[in-house]
């Protein structure tokens, strides 16, 4: 029984990671947003799997439906008349930048991994018992790298959302699904939704005022933490 659950969990973790990576690194924006919705649905399943139905409901409503709507609104799929819908991210970055971001993501991966190793001492011996946690570490690391790498604001917003989900998953993995952890995650989901909504509004407004070039977030000095 337990073994089958584990298999399901592993499958889920794999699926989450793959969908997240697809969402993060697909230059085709509509497809990336679709991947995001898929990711949110997978997250819903994951919460259900972790025994937090309340969180699953919140994730479904806020993460999949409302945030997804925000993204499609930002893409210009609802009111196409105002300005042309967004298709692809055409901003290019030099490879040095990509390399630096890769290092950043790796460093992050090591740091968070180490921290979690200290918190959950069991993990040292059997890392495969916590596949979701492992997926969380992977997802946060790659999302952070993507967040720092991309110039396109919409992709950064996507990366932020994936990063958020990864962090929530780590939270649940590290601290369990106690009432306090659930409260934290619920608040985090609300904030992520509000932030995405604000971001989507902004993107539309910027497109309306300036065109696609305004979505290029310029200064390479300011990367994330």
């Amino acid at each position, binding site marked *: 029984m337990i073994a089958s659950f584990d298999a399901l969990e592993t499958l889920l973790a794999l699926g989450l990671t793959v969908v997240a990576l697809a969402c993060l690194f697909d230059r085709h924006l509509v497809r990336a947003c679709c991947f995001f919705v898929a990711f949110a649905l997978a997250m819903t399943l994951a919460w259900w799997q972790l025994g937090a139905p309340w969180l699953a409901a919140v994730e479904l409503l806020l993460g999949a439906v409302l945030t997804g709507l925000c993204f499609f609104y930002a893409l210009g799929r609802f009111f196409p008349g105002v300005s042309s819908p967004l298709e692809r991210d055409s901003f290019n970055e030099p490879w040095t930048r990509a390399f630096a971001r890769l290092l950043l993501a790796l460093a992050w991966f090591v*740091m*968070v991994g*180490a*921290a*979690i190793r*200290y*918190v*959950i001492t069991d993990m040292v011996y059997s890392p495969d018992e916590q596949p979701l946690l492992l997926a969380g570490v992977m997802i*946060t690391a790659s999302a*952070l790298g993507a*967040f720092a790498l991309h110039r396109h*604001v919409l992709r*950064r*917003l996507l990366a*932020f959302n994936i*990063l*958020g989900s990864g*962090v*929530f998953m*780590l*939270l649940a993995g*590290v*601290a*369990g699904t*106690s*009432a*306090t*952890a659930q*409260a*934290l995650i619920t*608040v*985090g989901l609300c*904030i*992520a939704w*509000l*932030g995405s909504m*604000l*971001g989507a509004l*902004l*993107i539309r*407004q*910027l497109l309306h*005022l*300036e065109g696609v070039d*305004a979505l290029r*977030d310029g*200064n390479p*000095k*300011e990367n*994330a*933490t």
Partner: protein
Amino acid sequence: MIWRFGLFESTFTPLVSTHWALSAALGLPLLLGMLAALFPPQRMWPVALASLPVLVSGWVLLSAYDQAGLLRWQWEVAGVSLSLRLSGLSVLLLLTTQWIGVAAALYTPGSLRLGEPQPLSRWLWPLMGVLLSALSLIWLASDLLTLYVALELMGLSAVGMLLLSGKVAALVAGMRYLLLALVGSLAYLLGVALILGQWGRLDLQGLAAVVEPGPVAWIAAALMGAGLALKAALFPMHGWLSPVHGSAWTPVSALHAALVIKASLFMLLQLWSILLPGTFYAPRVIAWLGMLAIVWGGLLAWRTDSLKTLVASSTVAQLGYLMVVFPLLLGPDIAPLPRALAWEGFWLQLLGHAFAKAAMFMAAGNLIFATGESTLKGLAGTSRRLPLSLLIFGVASVTLMGLPPSSGFTAKWLLLEAMLISQQWWAVAALLVGTLLTAAYVFRMFRYSFDDSAPRHHYQPLAPGMDLIALALALTAFALGLLAHFPLALMRGGGV
């Protein structure tokens, strides 16, 4: 350090009137903001009338703290425990928030009326309400969940307010600020996750008792520190600050620079004093960054041509003063006397800067309103035509320079003494160099204003009271210098 933040058991339970005052202090700004969105006030007096109960609530809390000392509240909601505490420091910061918030609210109708009509202006009120409520909650909250909620509310409403002017520059800067703030709060959340996983509790008082130094505490502190430093615009992560202020509305800038940034700093210090008591390196790193911040912020402000960028960059430098104090507050082997001095100097500097920076933004806003120019060169001749606005700017900048008799001076005196006792010569040098750099950029601005050879242009008259509000704030920052005894006594935990 922990007891200084009021993280200990209280002797008395709060009275009923105190409960009411607490809910008024936390909820009224929000309610009034909503109300103002429905009926936007056009004049100053309705705002003044509406903000009276808020100020009264602050006063009631002050007197409650005076009589009973530390007060605590605790609730259990669906298995989640939330707690608040009212320490001397909380009262002080709460009062500061209320006064600056009310000043900004009073300033708003005039500034909205003068500028060109804005479609989004009515949304300023609810956002301001949320911001002030969230700030009040941050000063009072004593568990990580409440702090998280308050931090996020504050961050989002701050972003919203800064975007309202609707210009492209504001939107671009606001977008970046939004993304960074969101990622910053995720870093904070991850830190909370580690703490919750390791120690299984989120209340600060309990954590202070069980936290032991180790990799988890360090990494959690690093994560939370990075997230909060990003939100507080501490030195290497200050890049978003000036663009954000560049095209924001004046009262918004005033609130943001005076309070929002300080809230993150407050949380940073509070959490680190729990997670990293007596650590050597982390506060040192902050202090070194602070020294760079003083120099770099000063240079930025010195080189700029735009008045608002000058004021915003000076915030970076002023935060540097606060960062330099970190080793004295958190470091090991600091004797009680310098630590107490540094503690008092830190908060006095923070309060003085809050009032002065709010006043400075308002004065700068007034100058820009009146001249219609936002560059330093556009100020030529203002010393003759707009002496009051310029005088306010001057009084506020005296506080920033740390010249007597302002609060900046008294704070600097305390900090210098603490640094001398603990022999931190680099910090002493940084503080003194900072004074000169501040003087350099402030007087560069005055130099332009005294230039009488410029052609006259038309000056737009200001709404009545806009100058007076700024003057009141600037004078408060000034008066805190000689009357520092009152806030400091409040903070020490003794009666007034």
